[in-house]
């Protein structure tokens, strides 16, 4: 989907479907790099697309390619989930993702979750970082965005993103990467 078409997803179901099909797998993987519960992951996947629908009318192509834009939204949604109770969110959700899961879906979501265990370990280790550094580091280290894409996803300048990335790496070095014998977090698989 071209950036110019993105605003249409807010009111054109066909445009939305094209957008959804292009990004739904990436969004689910993004979510399970941060949460390990299949039902919460399904809820958050729905929430990310609902938030994208709300935000699309104000999207401008200067804000980066749609994939980075979606990750910026997804990050906001998942972070917000961690800041408040699930019960509170559920009361307002337009679409409850977990109610759309059948057992096969749960199993497939669990497969995604298992595959991303290492990423979640990194994610958990980021809790002590300042928010700005953490945001950039997440998108680059967990989600494979370039620093420039992370900058557009977060609405900051590329040079700012690089500085924050550098700082985040410096403060994490002792926690994650130098302590080979007893890592602070225990990756479950290589």
């Amino acid at each position, binding site marked *: 989907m071209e950036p110019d078409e993105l605003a249409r997803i*807010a*009111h054109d179901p066909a445009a939305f479907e094209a957008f959804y099909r292009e990004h*739904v*797998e990436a969004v689910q993987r993004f979510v399970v790099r941060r949460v390990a519960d299949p039902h919460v992951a399904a809820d958050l996947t729905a929430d990310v697309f609902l938030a994208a*629908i709300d935000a699309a009318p104000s999207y401008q192509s200067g804000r980066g390619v749609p994939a980075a834009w979606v990750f910026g939204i997804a990050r906001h949604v998942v972070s917000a989930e961690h800041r408040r109770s699930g019960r509170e969110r559920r009361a307002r959700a337009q679409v409850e993702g977990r109610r*759309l*899961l059948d057992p096969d879906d749960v199993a497939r979501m669990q497969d995604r979750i298992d595959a991303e265990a290492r990423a979640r370990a990194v994610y958990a280790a980021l809790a002590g970082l300042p928010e700005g550094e953490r945001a950039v580091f997440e998108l680059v280290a967990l989600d494979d965005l370039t620093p420039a894409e992370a900058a557009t996803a977060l609405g900051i300048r590329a040079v700012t993103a690089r500085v924050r990335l550098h700082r985040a790496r410096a403060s994490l070095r002792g926690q994650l990467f130098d302590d080979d014998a007893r890592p602070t977090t225990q990756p479950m698989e290589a």
Partner: protein
Amino acid sequence: MTASPRFEDRLLQQLRQVVADRPAPRVAQRRRPRRTRLALTGVGVAAAAAAVAVVATSNDGSHSAYAVQAQADGAVSVSIHSLSDAEGLQRSLRSAGVPAVVDYVPGDASACAAPGPPAASPGTPGMGGTAERGATLRTGTAGSGPSLSQEGKPPPGDGQRRTTMSVVSTRDGDATFTIDPGTLKPGDKVYITTSTGAVSSIGMAIAAHKPTAACAPAAPTP
């Protein structure tokens, strides 16, 4: 995508319904690649009809020179990307109910000094704005006549009865501002001018008469 996307399909159907249930967009499209003028043609209709979109843009090559959008609350938002089509912008604004006077001639005195018939400037054949509601539009560079020669002579002491400036903000290099025609008083006009000839110097003023002293109207031309 994996082999059996059941959750994904169910979620898609739910979300499609959410999209379909949303209210219709107030603005159908932002800048379009070609010169287009959509929707309202009647002057003054936009102010009365909430939730109707006017989209007017003009093309100066790769970018639209400007965009005019009617908001649901009756206000009209304007975004100016380049100073290439003052006439088109003025026409679009008037179609949206804004009594606009667009004058991109830099506001220095020499450009305003030369008297002459308002439409006499060569090289600006499309000066259709000349006769519209009595204001002259200049798109030329110099010597194209008094800026508001058909406006009538301002009553003494009333030349700057009410002026509001600096509503302009620049974003991505464009000048953007919003005008609510419903707040204008009878006789008010919305002057869009530039002091240096650059987009960054665009100013918007609401006044009964052109507020820039350097380009004050000369004697009225019949």
